[in-house]
């Protein structure tokens, strides 16, 4: 059977499941005993296994199968969650992601995962790790066999409660075996021992550290049980945990009938969720369908054609003055602006799509660097145009890496500076006006002005005399100059001397801005301003010679009409006095080589535009007015045309070019 037609669906769904596993793993790391999370992970892994096996990606299916085994063991309390297991599982997820990535790129999804598989096997069998479990946390790794399980089940029906009791002896205890014997004595008075870890023999031979775990059946409540055991001297700590018989049962059923796994699991999670009233919500079914972005673009193109025809109709209606026609056209105008709004919102996606991979990234990054970092993500529901979402990921990755690598200090240094040893990075997105802001704030060392200046002078980005006069804002902007890195040690994470300049140009190409603020010793904040949508722009239409150009409103400071006398000359360059500032006057006709006579009118129309804090006055022939336009690319054939950032189609069907003020201001 040809599977290609399902490939898209497979890829999309695998990504979703991997993301779900990722998210839940991060939660599990914080709440290792929360079984409902394990169940969620198990479910995603299971679906992934089924899908990849159907599609014939065996490595993928095998690895998910192994993960499933480990998760299953965790669910059944055979092994408990330790940082070690989490790491191995994250490792497996990395492999899975790489495989899916390879499938997307047309590969076969094959990958050597034998090492990870081996580790998973070890964990599953409780070897090597179970030792660690006891040493690490004193937690219990109980493994019950079928017989023991059935005993528990039977005795439960007779009113016994199964407990898992962990007992820790005093470190000064000399005769450990004797104390163990006494503890067992006490237990046997009130119940029955089913299992112990380490085994009774090992306990008698004192082959254990200080703590041991006993699975027992008793009619007593846990408090009373603990009190009784504590009466034995030299017992330091007793923890009794009621065993969840359901998890034990589940293991049995599943072993017998793996086919029914899926349904079994889902019912199980549901009941557990109800019982415990946990916070894990079932995903709400938002009736949605997947639509290829190209179709949306197509729809937008068709709509634009419609708008152009609407413009023509309006002209005809106003000429004919037929009341019926005028009414209909007016109604159509209203409809089409509603349609435009709907179309635009269809292209908006929550920035969560980009944000949700960061917690993982920060976690492993912090681990690699030996730092402690807590990432707080806010405003993931903020929506942005799909085109922006696709592009903003890389710059954000770079900035976050930067914050972890250069911003947050090592734990020792933080403690020495009387800070909490765990660093904090806040990633926040929010709407404001026609823009979306994304902020990355860390409470790290901040930016050292002197260090930057030193570096900038060393790298010949500025000379020493100008450096002294620069204000903080200008100094921070130096970070975005190419050939700059302030980390003392060059690491493979950031600090290759390229980067922030690339980040800046990327953000600018999206029509955005990036700024930095910082307080030395307290942290720094990178703030990105992005336009809500890439495809619709507010512009001012102007004419120069016979040609019409569009100037983005975001660049415009003011439009003014000057008399000839107000134009002055300085250094062979025409300048004007704009509110006390000398601003160079640029003739569009000259700079864009527009054919036609240069008229010497008494009055000159000028648009003052800005780029950062630099300004220029553009001399035009007339203003047409403000308009919302749809941005269209010029096409790859004409890439990087001087001073032109794109084109748009006007109401009369003509193409007008959009001016890029960045090129016009020097």
């Amino acid at each position: 059977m040809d599977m290609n037609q399902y490939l898209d669906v497979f890829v999309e769904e695998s990504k979703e499941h991997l993301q779900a596993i990722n998210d839940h793993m991060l939660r599990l790391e914080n709440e290792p005993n929360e079984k409902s999370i394990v169940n969620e992970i198990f479910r995603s892994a299971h679906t992934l296994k089924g899908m990849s096996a159907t599609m014939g990606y065996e490595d993928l299916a095998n690895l998910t199968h192994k993960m499933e085994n480990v998760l299953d063991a965790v669910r059944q309390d055979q092994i408990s969650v330790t940082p070690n297991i989490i790491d191995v599982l994250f490792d497996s997820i990395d492999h899975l992601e790489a495989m899916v990535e390879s499938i997307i790129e047309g590969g076969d999804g094959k990958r050597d995962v034998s090492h990870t598989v081996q580790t998973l096997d070890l964990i599953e069998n409780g070897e090597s790790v179970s030792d660690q479990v006891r040493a690490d946390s004193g937690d219990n790794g109980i493994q019950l066999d079928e017989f023991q399980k059935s005993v528990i089940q039977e005795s439960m029906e007779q009113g016994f409660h199964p407990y898992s009791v962990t007992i820790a002896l005093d470190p000064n205890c000399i005769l450990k075996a004797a104390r163990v014997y006494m503890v067992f004595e006490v237990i046997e008075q009130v119940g029955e021992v089913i299992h112990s870890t380490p085994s009774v023999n090992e306990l008698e031979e004192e082959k254990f550290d200080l703590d041991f775990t006993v699975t027992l059946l008793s009619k007593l409540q846990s408090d009373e049980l603990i009190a009784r055991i504590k009466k034995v001297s030299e017992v330091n700590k007793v923890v009794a945990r009621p065993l969840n018989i359901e998890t034990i049962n589940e293991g049995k059923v599943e072993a017998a009938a793996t086919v029914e796994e899926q349904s079994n699991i889902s019912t199980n999670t549901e009941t557990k969720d109800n019982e415990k009233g946990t916070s894990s919500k079932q995903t709400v079914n938002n009736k949605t369908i997947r639509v290829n972005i190209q179709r949306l673009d197509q729809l937008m193109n068709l709509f634009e054609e419609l708008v152009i025809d609407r413009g023509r109709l309006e002209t005809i209606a106003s000429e004919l003055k037929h009341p019926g026609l005028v009414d209909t056209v007016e109604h159509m105008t209203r409809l089409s602006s509603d349609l435009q709004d709907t179309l635009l919102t269809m292209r908006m996606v929550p920035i969560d799509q980009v944000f949700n991979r960061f917690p993982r990234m920060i976690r492993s990054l912090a681990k690699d660097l030996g730092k402690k970092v807590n990432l707080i993500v806010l405003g993931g529901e903020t929506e942005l145009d799909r085109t922006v979402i696709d592009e903003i990921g890389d710059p954000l990755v770079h900035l976050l890496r930067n914050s972890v690598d250069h911003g947050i200090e090592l734990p020792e240094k933080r403690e020495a500076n009387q800070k909490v040893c765990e660093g904090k990075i806040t990633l926040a997105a929010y709407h404001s006006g026609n823009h979306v802001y994304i902020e990355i704030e860390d409470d790290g060392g901040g930016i050292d002005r002197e260090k930057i200046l030193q570096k900038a002078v060393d790298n010949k980005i500025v000379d020493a005399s100008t450096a002294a006069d620069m204000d903080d804002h200008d100094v921070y902007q130096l970070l975005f100059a190419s050939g700059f890195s302030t980390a003392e040690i060059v690491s493979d994470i950031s600090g290759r001397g390229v980067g922030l300049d690339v980040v800046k140009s990327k953000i600018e190409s999206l029509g955005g801005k990036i700024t930095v603020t910082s307080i030395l010793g307290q942290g720094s904040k990178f703030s990105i301003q992005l336009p809500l949508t890439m495809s619709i722009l507010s512009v001012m239409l102007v004419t120069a010679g016979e040609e019409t150009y569009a100037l983005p409103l975001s660049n415009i400071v003011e439009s003014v009409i000057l008399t000839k006398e107000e134009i002055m000359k300085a250094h062979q360059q025409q300048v004007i006095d704009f509110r006390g500032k000398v601003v160079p006057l640029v003739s569009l006709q000259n700079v864009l080589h527009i054919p036609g006579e240069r008229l010497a009118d008494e009055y000159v129309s000028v648009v003052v535009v800005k780029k950062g804090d630099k300004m220029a006055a553009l001399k035009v022939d007339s203003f047409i007015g403000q308009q919302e336009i749809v941005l269209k690319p010029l096409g790859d054939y004409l890439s990087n045309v001087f001073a032109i950032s794109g084109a748009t189609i006007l109401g009369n069907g003509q193409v007008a070019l959009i001016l890029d003020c960045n090129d016009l201001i020097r």
Partner: protein
Amino acid sequence: MSEMKTKKREMKVIVFQLLDEEYGVDIHQVKSIERNQDITRVPRTPSFVKGVINLRGVVTPVIDLRSRFELPEAVHTEETRIVIVNANDLEVGMIVDAANDVIDVPDDSVEPAPEVVGGIDAEYLDGVVKLDRRLLILLNLEKVLNPDEIIELRKMKETKE
């Protein structure tokens, strides 16, 4: 299908005029043939780039094929056409004197192009076809529409300035 086997392999070619010569491009590379229309000039581009047109909502660059090959530019007439072609994943319109024929060209009738045909450098050609009394010059669109050349031309111009 059986017809294909007995027949010689051939390709369909769109024929257009430039100066006094006839040129051809593979029909698979031609998206549409448009009447001459208003072109918006794009400043500071090579002289053969005439600008951009609105092709049913898509902004499409247009070049004058005559000046692309450094032939004298013609006054546009009723016959003038813009052939929209697709090569190197680029969609570009080419202004030609006239376009009015589609013919079948058997593969074995294509001969390598001589050094210079009709004033066009051989590197832009795929070959020539002799058909009865007509001589058809096949264009290599990948070469003709190479955007790198635009960049080079711009650099040359900038250094001149």
